[in-house]
Protein backbone atom coordinates (compact mmCIF):
# COMPACT_ATOMS: atom_id res chain seq x y z
CA UNK A 1 0.00 0.00 0.00
CA UNK A 2 1.50 3.32 -1.03
CA UNK A 3 1.45 6.35 1.24
CA UNK A 4 -1.29 7.99 -0.84
CA UNK A 5 -3.44 4.85 -0.68
CA UNK A 6 -3.02 4.81 3.11
CA UNK A 7 -4.02 8.46 3.32
CA UNK A 8 -7.14 7.92 1.22
CA UNK A 9 -8.07 4.94 3.38
CA UNK A 10 -7.69 7.09 6.52
CA UNK A 11 -9.75 9.81 4.84
CA UNK A 12 -12.60 7.36 4.23
CA UNK A 13 -12.45 6.16 7.84
CA UNK A 14 -12.56 9.78 9.05
CA UNK A 15 -15.63 10.49 6.87
CA UNK A 16 -17.49 7.41 8.17
CA UNK A 17 -16.66 8.21 11.80
CA UNK A 18 -17.70 11.85 11.35
CA UNK A 19 -21.01 10.86 9.72
CA UNK A 20 -21.77 8.44 12.56
CA UNK A 21 -20.83 11.00 15.21
CA UNK A 22 -22.89 13.70 13.49
CA UNK A 23 -25.92 11.47 13.47
CA UNK A 24 -25.38 10.52 17.10
CA UNK A 25 -24.92 14.17 18.08
CA UNK A 26 -28.19 15.11 16.38
CA UNK A 27 -29.99 12.22 18.03
CA UNK A 28 -28.52 13.20 21.41
CA UNK A 29 -29.70 16.79 20.86
CA UNK A 30 -33.24 15.67 20.02
CA UNK A 31 -33.24 13.29 22.97
CA UNK A 32 -32.20 16.15 25.21
CA UNK A 33 -35.25 18.13 24.10
CA UNK A 34 -37.81 15.35 23.73
CA UNK A 35 -36.45 12.31 25.55
CA UNK A 36 -35.23 9.05 24.06
CA UNK A 37 -32.38 6.58 24.04
CA UNK A 38 -29.09 7.11 22.23
CA UNK A 39 -29.09 3.59 20.76
CA UNK A 40 -31.79 1.20 19.62
CA UNK A 41 -34.75 1.72 17.32
CA UNK A 42 -33.67 3.45 14.14
CA UNK A 43 -30.21 2.68 12.77
CA UNK A 44 -28.24 5.29 14.77
Amino acid at each position, binding site marked *: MTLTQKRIFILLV*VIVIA*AVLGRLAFRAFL*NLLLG*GTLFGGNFL
Partner: protein
Amino acid sequence: MIFTKRQGMKKQNNLKRKDRALWGSIYVFAFAAAFAGSIAFKVKHDPLGGEFKADWNDSVGKVYTDIAYGKGEANTFDLYVPADGSRSGYGLIVYLHAGGFTSGDKSGDAEMLEWLCSKGYVTAGVNYTLVSEAHPDASVYSQSVEIRESIPYVIAEAEKLGYPIDKMAVSGGSAGCCLALLYAYRDAETSPVPVKMVFGAAGPSSFYPEDWKCYGFDIGSAESDTAARVMFSAMAGRELKAEFGTPEYDDEIRDISALLWVNENSVPTLLAYGKYDKVQPYEGSQRLLKALEDNHVPHDYYLCEHSGHGLQNDNKVYRDYMRKILEYLDTYMPLK
Protein backbone atom coordinates in the same frame (compact mmCIF):
# COMPACT_ATOMS: atom_id res chain seq x y z
CA MET B 1 29.06 19.70 -1.09
CA ILE B 2 28.11 19.21 2.59
CA PHE B 3 26.18 22.46 2.49
CA THR B 4 24.22 21.35 -0.58
CA LYS B 5 23.28 17.97 0.98
CA ARG B 6 22.04 19.68 4.14
CA GLN B 7 20.11 22.13 2.04
CA GLY B 8 18.51 19.27 0.09
CA MET B 9 17.48 17.45 3.28
CA LYS B 10 15.99 20.64 4.65
CA LYS B 11 14.02 21.12 1.47
CA GLN B 12 12.76 17.53 1.65
CA ASN B 13 11.73 17.96 5.29
CA ASN B 14 9.88 21.14 4.41
CA LEU B 15 8.04 19.34 1.64
CA LYS B 16 7.09 16.49 4.00
CA ARG B 17 5.89 18.98 6.58
CA LYS B 18 3.78 20.80 4.01
CA ASP B 19 2.42 17.51 2.76
CA ARG B 20 1.44 16.46 6.29
CA ALA B 21 -0.16 19.83 6.94
CA LEU B 22 -2.14 19.56 3.71
CA TRP B 23 -3.44 16.08 4.53
CA GLY B 24 -4.16 17.14 8.12
CA SER B 25 -6.29 19.98 6.75
CA ILE B 26 -8.03 17.58 4.36
CA TYR B 27 -8.87 15.26 7.29
CA VAL B 28 -10.23 18.12 9.40
CA PHE B 29 -12.29 19.50 6.53
CA ALA B 30 -13.61 16.03 5.61
CA PHE B 31 -14.56 15.39 9.25
CA ALA B 32 -16.41 18.70 9.54
CA ALA B 33 -18.16 18.27 6.20
CA ALA B 34 -19.25 14.68 6.91
CA PHE B 35 -20.37 15.62 10.44
CA ALA B 36 -22.48 18.56 9.23
CA GLY B 37 -23.68 16.65 6.16
CA SER B 38 -24.99 13.72 8.19
CA ILE B 39 -26.95 16.13 10.39
CA ALA B 40 -28.35 17.99 7.38
CA PHE B 41 -29.30 14.70 5.77
CA LYS B 42 -31.13 13.60 8.91
CA VAL B 43 -32.99 16.92 9.12
CA LYS B 44 -34.09 16.85 5.49
CA HIS B 45 -34.55 13.12 4.95
CA ASP B 46 -38.05 11.66 5.26
CA PRO B 47 -37.48 8.25 6.87
CA LEU B 48 -40.97 7.17 5.85
CA GLY B 49 -40.16 7.69 2.18
CA GLY B 50 -43.12 9.97 1.47
CA GLU B 51 -45.63 7.20 2.19
CA PHE B 52 -47.81 9.58 4.20
CA LYS B 53 -47.67 12.56 1.89
CA ALA B 54 -50.11 13.42 -0.85
CA ASP B 55 -49.11 14.96 -4.14
CA TRP B 56 -51.50 17.82 -3.47
CA ASN B 57 -53.09 19.50 -6.47
CA ASP B 58 -56.55 20.32 -7.82
CA SER B 59 -57.09 16.75 -8.98
CA VAL B 60 -56.73 15.57 -5.37
CA GLY B 61 -58.60 18.25 -3.47
CA LYS B 62 -58.96 21.86 -2.53
CA VAL B 63 -58.30 23.78 0.66
CA TYR B 64 -60.31 26.69 2.08
CA THR B 65 -58.32 28.55 4.71
CA ASP B 66 -59.04 30.73 7.74
CA ILE B 67 -62.77 30.19 7.99
CA ALA B 68 -64.11 31.74 11.20
CA TYR B 69 -66.01 29.75 13.78
CA GLY B 70 -66.08 32.21 16.66
CA LYS B 71 -65.28 35.74 17.75
CA GLY B 72 -61.71 35.06 18.90
CA GLU B 73 -58.82 35.92 16.62
CA ALA B 74 -57.67 32.29 16.74
CA ASN B 75 -61.11 30.87 16.09
CA THR B 76 -60.48 29.80 12.53
CA PHE B 77 -60.15 26.56 10.65
CA ASP B 78 -58.86 25.27 7.33
CA LEU B 79 -61.08 22.89 5.40
CA TYR B 80 -59.72 20.37 2.90
CA VAL B 81 -62.24 18.80 0.54
CA PRO B 82 -61.55 15.95 -1.90
CA ALA B 83 -61.85 16.59 -5.63
CA ASP B 84 -64.59 13.98 -5.92
CA GLY B 85 -67.67 15.82 -4.67
CA SER B 86 -70.19 13.34 -6.02
CA ARG B 87 -70.75 11.17 -2.96
CA SER B 88 -73.90 11.36 -0.84
CA GLY B 89 -72.01 11.45 2.44
CA TYR B 90 -68.50 12.16 3.67
CA GLY B 91 -66.48 11.36 6.73
CA LEU B 92 -64.86 14.33 8.44
CA ILE B 93 -61.44 14.07 10.10
CA VAL B 94 -60.51 16.92 12.41
CA TYR B 95 -56.79 17.13 13.17
CA LEU B 96 -55.70 19.42 16.03
CA HIS B 97 -52.23 20.91 16.06
CA ALA B 98 -49.47 20.43 18.61
CA GLY B 99 -47.55 23.12 20.47
CA GLY B 100 -47.88 22.62 24.20
CA PHE B 101 -51.14 24.64 24.30
CA THR B 102 -49.01 27.79 23.89
CA SER B 103 -47.89 27.68 20.27
CA GLY B 104 -48.52 26.01 16.91
CA ASP B 105 -50.90 26.55 14.05
CA LYS B 106 -53.19 24.47 11.85
CA SER B 107 -50.95 25.22 8.86
CA GLY B 108 -48.27 23.03 10.45
CA ASP B 109 -50.45 20.00 9.82
CA ALA B 110 -51.11 20.70 6.13
CA GLU B 111 -49.20 17.58 5.08
CA MET B 112 -51.25 15.32 7.35
CA LEU B 113 -54.54 17.01 6.39
CA GLU B 114 -53.74 16.74 2.68
CA TRP B 115 -52.77 13.09 3.03
CA LEU B 116 -56.00 12.20 4.87
CA CYS B 117 -58.05 14.24 2.39
CA SER B 118 -56.39 12.40 -0.49
CA LYS B 119 -57.94 9.23 0.95
CA GLY B 120 -61.41 10.64 0.28
CA TYR B 121 -62.21 12.39 3.54
CA VAL B 122 -63.09 15.98 4.31
CA THR B 123 -60.41 17.15 6.74
CA ALA B 124 -60.11 20.17 8.97
CA GLY B 125 -57.34 21.78 10.96
CA VAL B 126 -58.79 23.90 13.73
CA ASN B 127 -56.94 26.66 15.60
CA TYR B 128 -57.71 27.51 19.21
CA THR B 129 -56.75 30.38 21.50
CA LEU B 130 -53.25 29.70 22.79
CA VAL B 131 -52.07 30.45 26.30
CA SER B 132 -49.98 33.62 25.99
CA GLU B 133 -49.42 37.04 27.54
CA ALA B 134 -52.27 38.33 25.38
CA HIS B 135 -54.50 35.47 26.54
CA PRO B 136 -53.43 34.59 30.09
CA ASP B 137 -56.87 33.16 30.85
CA ALA B 138 -56.70 30.60 28.07
CA SER B 139 -56.36 27.05 29.34
CA VAL B 140 -56.66 23.48 28.18
CA TYR B 141 -60.27 23.66 29.26
CA SER B 142 -61.07 26.85 27.33
CA GLN B 143 -59.32 25.39 24.29
CA SER B 144 -61.37 22.18 24.53
CA VAL B 145 -64.54 24.27 24.68
CA GLU B 146 -63.49 26.18 21.56
CA ILE B 147 -62.89 22.90 19.74
CA ARG B 148 -66.32 21.68 20.81
CA GLU B 149 -67.88 24.89 19.52
CA SER B 150 -66.01 24.73 16.22
CA ILE B 151 -67.31 21.36 15.06
CA PRO B 152 -70.84 22.46 14.00
CA TYR B 153 -69.26 25.31 12.00
CA VAL B 154 -66.84 22.92 10.28
CA ILE B 155 -69.67 20.57 9.33
CA ALA B 156 -71.91 23.43 8.15
CA GLU B 157 -69.11 24.84 5.99
CA ALA B 158 -68.43 21.44 4.43
CA GLU B 159 -72.11 21.05 3.64
CA LYS B 160 -72.21 24.55 2.17
CA LEU B 161 -69.46 23.47 -0.21
CA GLY B 162 -71.43 20.39 -1.24
CA TYR B 163 -69.88 17.81 1.08
CA PRO B 164 -72.54 16.50 3.47
CA ILE B 165 -70.87 15.08 6.60
CA ASP B 166 -72.41 11.97 8.17
CA LYS B 167 -69.67 10.85 10.57
CA MET B 168 -66.40 12.10 11.96
CA ALA B 169 -63.07 11.25 13.56
CA VAL B 170 -61.04 13.54 15.76
CA SER B 171 -57.28 13.44 16.07
CA GLY B 172 -54.17 15.38 16.87
CA GLY B 173 -50.60 15.44 18.03
CA SER B 174 -49.38 16.22 21.55
CA ALA B 175 -51.56 19.08 22.86
CA GLY B 176 -53.84 18.45 19.88
CA CYS B 177 -54.10 14.80 20.88
CA CYS B 178 -55.08 15.86 24.42
CA LEU B 179 -57.86 18.04 23.00
CA ALA B 180 -58.91 15.34 20.53
CA LEU B 181 -59.25 12.78 23.33
CA LEU B 182 -61.32 15.25 25.35
CA TYR B 183 -63.64 15.84 22.43
CA ALA B 184 -63.96 12.12 21.69
CA TYR B 185 -64.63 11.00 25.27
CA ARG B 186 -66.25 14.07 26.84
CA ASP B 187 -67.99 15.96 24.05
CA ALA B 188 -68.85 13.36 21.41
CA GLU B 189 -72.52 13.53 22.35
CA THR B 190 -72.65 17.22 21.45
CA SER B 191 -71.39 16.54 17.93
CA PRO B 192 -73.93 17.05 15.11
CA VAL B 193 -72.70 13.76 13.58
CA PRO B 194 -71.57 10.52 15.23
CA VAL B 195 -67.93 10.47 16.35
CA LYS B 196 -66.60 7.12 15.14
CA MET B 197 -62.99 7.09 16.31
CA VAL B 198 -60.11 9.06 17.76
CA PHE B 199 -56.43 8.83 17.00
CA GLY B 200 -53.41 10.71 18.18
CA ALA B 201 -49.86 10.71 19.43
CA ALA B 202 -48.24 11.79 22.67
CA GLY B 203 -51.22 13.58 24.18
CA PRO B 204 -51.55 13.97 27.94
CA SER B 205 -54.76 12.61 29.42
CA SER B 206 -53.78 12.02 33.06
CA PHE B 207 -53.15 14.77 35.57
CA TYR B 208 -51.99 12.80 38.59
CA PRO B 209 -48.68 14.10 39.97
CA GLU B 210 -47.27 10.58 40.35
CA ASP B 211 -47.56 10.11 36.57
CA TRP B 212 -45.60 13.27 35.81
CA LYS B 213 -42.18 11.84 36.64
CA CYS B 214 -40.69 13.76 33.74
CA TYR B 215 -41.41 16.97 35.67
CA GLY B 216 -40.41 15.60 39.07
CA PHE B 217 -43.98 15.84 40.36
CA ASP B 218 -43.87 12.23 41.57
CA ILE B 219 -41.51 13.04 44.46
CA GLY B 220 -44.45 13.81 46.72
CA SER B 221 -42.75 16.67 48.59
CA ALA B 222 -44.59 19.85 49.50
CA GLU B 223 -42.63 21.68 46.81
CA SER B 224 -43.33 19.15 44.05
CA ASP B 225 -47.01 19.00 45.00
CA THR B 226 -47.23 22.78 44.86
CA ALA B 227 -45.52 22.85 41.46
CA ALA B 228 -47.91 20.20 40.15
CA ARG B 229 -50.91 22.05 41.56
CA VAL B 230 -49.82 25.35 39.96
CA MET B 231 -49.30 23.74 36.57
CA PHE B 232 -52.45 21.63 36.58
CA SER B 233 -54.51 24.61 37.82
CA ALA B 234 -53.24 26.71 34.93
CA MET B 235 -54.11 23.91 32.52
CA ALA B 236 -57.56 23.42 34.04
CA GLY B 237 -58.26 27.15 34.05
CA ARG B 238 -59.34 27.01 37.69
CA GLU B 239 -57.71 26.73 41.09
CA LEU B 240 -57.45 23.11 42.13
CA LYS B 241 -58.00 22.85 45.86
CA ALA B 242 -58.72 19.17 46.56
CA GLU B 243 -56.05 16.84 47.84
CA PHE B 244 -54.36 14.74 45.17
CA GLY B 245 -55.60 11.17 45.00
CA THR B 246 -59.10 11.92 46.26
CA PRO B 247 -62.42 11.65 44.39
CA GLU B 248 -62.79 15.40 44.92
CA TYR B 249 -59.57 15.95 42.97
CA ASP B 250 -60.90 13.78 40.14
CA ASP B 251 -64.01 15.96 40.04
CA GLU B 252 -61.91 19.12 39.84
CA ILE B 253 -59.58 17.85 37.12
CA ARG B 254 -62.16 15.90 35.11
CA ASP B 255 -62.79 18.72 32.64
CA ILE B 256 -59.29 18.38 31.18
CA SER B 257 -58.51 14.74 31.91
CA ALA B 258 -59.73 12.61 29.02
CA LEU B 259 -58.78 9.49 30.96
CA LEU B 260 -61.59 10.13 33.45
CA TRP B 261 -64.21 10.12 30.69
CA VAL B 262 -63.41 6.68 29.31
CA ASN B 263 -66.31 4.26 29.62
CA GLU B 264 -67.67 1.23 27.78
CA ASN B 265 -69.26 3.52 25.17
CA SER B 266 -66.06 5.36 24.32
CA VAL B 267 -65.08 5.45 20.67
CA PRO B 268 -62.38 3.22 19.16
CA THR B 269 -59.01 4.70 19.97
CA LEU B 270 -55.65 4.55 18.24
CA LEU B 271 -52.66 5.93 20.16
CA ALA B 272 -48.88 6.25 19.92
CA TYR B 273 -46.54 7.27 22.73
CA GLY B 274 -42.83 7.49 23.40
CA LYS B 275 -41.48 5.63 26.42
CA TYR B 276 -38.94 8.34 27.27
CA ASP B 277 -41.24 11.32 26.73
CA LYS B 278 -39.92 14.38 28.58
CA VAL B 279 -42.76 16.69 27.64
CA GLN B 280 -45.79 14.72 28.79
CA PRO B 281 -45.77 11.55 30.88
CA TYR B 282 -45.52 8.08 29.41
CA GLU B 283 -46.91 6.81 32.73
CA GLY B 284 -50.15 8.69 32.05
CA SER B 285 -50.50 6.87 28.74
CA GLN B 286 -50.28 3.56 30.60
CA ARG B 287 -53.13 4.69 32.82
CA LEU B 288 -55.17 5.60 29.75
CA LEU B 289 -54.33 2.23 28.19
CA LYS B 290 -55.59 0.45 31.30
CA ALA B 291 -58.82 2.47 31.24
CA LEU B 292 -59.40 1.45 27.61
CA GLU B 293 -58.69 -2.19 28.44
CA ASP B 294 -60.88 -2.18 31.57
CA ASN B 295 -63.78 -0.69 29.62
CA HIS B 296 -63.29 -2.99 26.61
CA VAL B 297 -62.93 -0.05 24.25
CA PRO B 298 -61.56 -1.15 20.86
CA HIS B 299 -58.06 0.30 20.79
CA ASP B 300 -54.50 -0.01 19.57
CA TYR B 301 -51.56 1.41 21.45
CA TYR B 302 -48.18 1.84 19.75
CA LEU B 303 -45.23 2.26 22.07
CA CYS B 304 -42.05 3.77 20.68
CA GLU B 305 -39.60 2.04 23.02
CA HIS B 306 -36.60 4.26 22.24
CA SER B 307 -38.30 7.61 21.68
CA GLY B 308 -39.44 10.66 23.49
CA HIS B 309 -42.17 13.15 22.68
CA GLY B 310 -41.34 13.26 18.97
CA LEU B 311 -41.50 9.45 18.52
CA GLN B 312 -38.28 10.21 16.71
CA ASN B 313 -36.20 7.08 17.27
CA ASP B 314 -38.67 4.40 16.20
CA ASN B 315 -39.51 4.93 12.55
CA LYS B 316 -40.81 1.40 12.10
CA VAL B 317 -43.31 1.70 14.96
CA TYR B 318 -44.36 5.14 13.76
CA ARG B 319 -44.89 3.80 10.24
CA ASP B 320 -47.03 0.98 11.64
CA TYR B 321 -49.06 3.54 13.62
CA MET B 322 -49.64 5.64 10.51
CA ARG B 323 -50.68 2.60 8.49
CA LYS B 324 -53.03 1.63 11.29
CA ILE B 325 -54.79 4.99 10.91
CA LEU B 326 -55.87 3.90 7.43
CA GLU B 327 -57.03 0.53 8.77
CA TYR B 328 -59.10 2.31 11.43
CA LEU B 329 -60.57 4.64 8.84
CA ASP B 330 -61.47 1.69 6.61
CA THR B 331 -63.11 -0.06 9.55
CA TYR B 332 -64.88 2.77 11.36
CA MET B 333 -65.23 5.42 8.65
CA PRO B 334 -65.55 3.47 5.38
CA LEU B 335 -66.02 5.56 2.26
CA LYS B 336 -69.51 5.40 0.84
